[in-house]
């Protein structure tokens, strides 16, 4: 994935790989090769990729949620660790203990209880500030997770103590089966500013736009040391988990017209695009083969 000459190409390559990784996971589930649960990132790739490009994996920290694969791949590029984790292999990121929702590698963490990660990410920012590392602590939350009160406790503390937290709200308009109108009152952006946190809001699936705004937000955090609330209106094309989807198919179709891959891909020349896609397919095939062969996690 390195070696690509331009930013659009790099971003497209990352997004494309995430998309295909997630589709592959859903296939493997359908084939009965995976058990447990998974929440794919299909349709939201521009967010992870656009934001994470501004983070330094050796210094910055990411805390993600149940829908963490896209964030994980963007931040660590560790497809084999993730796939073998989800497959319950000993070579998984967490030796098969965590599974799809509970990942940890380097400065990346995720957990599956909604909301609970937000104060942890805030505490991480406090620690990094006290240690003087200059790190930014990024936490990803969905629209539904704005229902959890601990989110506001965290906004208050981050604002009060001027902590370098990037709160990213990915509003994909649904929490599991529930449309946002039935779970959220008022305004998302206003919820950030009510706590004195700087807010930016974007309604786009264009990774270039996300990249620009996120770059500005991260730069601002590094400069001021203060938190930032980045609201991204987005959409997922895949079901919530594996097969549970009661949304109007027409609505999904309409959203697919703004597929972030399409938008980013159209910016590239056909040869470059094809090269990227072929490289991704090959890497993915190798990753699946390697994970398939890896030893299953075994009790000590």
């Amino acid at each position, binding site marked *: 994935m390195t070696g690509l000459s331009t930013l659009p190409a790099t971003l497209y390559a990352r997004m494309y790989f995430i998309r295909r990784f997630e589709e592959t996971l859903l296939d493997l589930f359908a084939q009965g090769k995976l058990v447990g649960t998974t929440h794919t990132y299909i349709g939201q790739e521009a967010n992870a990729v656009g934001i994470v490009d501004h983070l330094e994996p050796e210094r910055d920290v990411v805390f993600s949620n149940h829908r963490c694969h896209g964030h994980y791949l963007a931040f660590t590029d560790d497809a084999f660790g993730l796939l073998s984790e989800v497959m*319950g292999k000993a070579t998984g990121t967490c030796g098969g*203990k965590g599974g799809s*929702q*509970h990942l940890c590698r380097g400065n990346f963490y995720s957990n599956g209880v909604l909301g609970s990660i937000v104060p942890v990410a805030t505490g991480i920012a406090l620690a990094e500030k006290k240690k003087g590392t200059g790190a930014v602590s990024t936490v990803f939350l969905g629209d539904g997770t704005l*229902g959890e009160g601990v989110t506001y406790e965290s906004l208050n503390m981050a604002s009060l103590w001027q902590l370098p937290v990037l709160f990213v709200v990915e509003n994909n308009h649904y929490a599991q089966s529930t449309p946002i109108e039935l779970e959220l009152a008022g305004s998302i952006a206003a919820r950030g500013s009510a706590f004195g946190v700087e807010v930016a809001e974007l309604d786009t699936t264009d990774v270039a736009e996300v990249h620009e705004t996120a770059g500005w937000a991260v730069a601002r955090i590094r400069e001021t040391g203060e938190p930032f609330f980045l609201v991204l209106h987005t959409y997922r094309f895949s079901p919530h988990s594996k097969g549970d989807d009661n949304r109007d198919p027409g609505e999904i179709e309409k959203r697919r017209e703004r597929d972030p891959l399409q938008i980013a891909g159209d910016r590239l020349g056909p040869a470059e695009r094809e090269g990227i896609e072929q490289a991704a397919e090959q890497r993915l095939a190798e990753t699946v083969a390697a994970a398939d062969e890896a030893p299953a996690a*075994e009790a000590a």
Partner: protein
Amino acid sequence: MSAPSHKRCVQALNEGLHEVFAERDDVYLLGEDVLDPYGGAFKVTQGLSDAFPDRVLTTPISEGGLFGVAAGMSLRGLRPILEIMFGDFIALGLDQVVNGISKFREMYDDQVTVPLVVRTPMGGRRGYGPTHSQSLEKLLLGIPNICVVAASECHDLGGLLANAVDDDRPVFFIENKLMYGRPNRRPEEGHIGELAVRETGTRYPALTFSGTDFTEASATIVTYGGMVPIVLDAVTELILERELFCEVVALSQLLPMELEPVFESVARTGALVTVEEGTLTGGFGAEITARVQEEAWSDLRRPVQRVAARDGIIPSARPLEDAMLPSAGDVVEAVVALEAVRS
């Protein structure tokens, strides 16, 4: 072991909900994603919001707040049923339970009652990983003035749920994820399969199973919920492969503890094994053991043995999860070990 004609447990619970909604108009149900056509993450509420649109509320993801909302509704005379999507998330509501719901009646000097039901699925064996597989009902057993019910696939699931709604106390109604898809096998002519079954006439009955028609047996096994079929498997294996007979007491009321059926069985067997899916320390088995050794000291010929999950996380990978959770094999082993030390 079960006739194919039995309805599945999820259907029994669902029918119970429909019946109780039809009977009482003060019953409400709240929870995440409970509306039709979705009908809840485990489909227990299917059809309910279509039938009773004003009394089924889908909610934001706010477990802590929802426990409080349910408390407020019940203080004002309604009978809310709160569905918590995964039992692991009751931890988010424990302040409301410990410092509100369980206290209001007694601390307000009996001026109020707090009739509410919290329904939630517990248990692992589906590879859901550390935060979606626990059996946290053990945390509730230390809270005074609440009722904890955990029925098994051999109980009248719909009836018990209706009883919980009629109860004037706060009731935690613990379901089990694997149970949902299994047949709701009820005793027929005093038997389930080969085993004779006695059922107490209490609000949340205990079932006692015997392979010897309640004559002599080597040990009593007390358990509940999702462990019941696993224990029954173990009992069958013990009969077939070791010629050891055990009685099984499947409680459905875990709190307040009413252990008459256990005492009666231990009087016959002289030995007790407790079995639970939750982690060992500070669990169901500890409290039962403390009570039984005190009340039935002279009946016990051996120390009570506990079978439970290892004290740790429930891993996602299936081989790791299996090694962590108690199995039929573990139950067999515990009974055999008890026999081995029998004097």
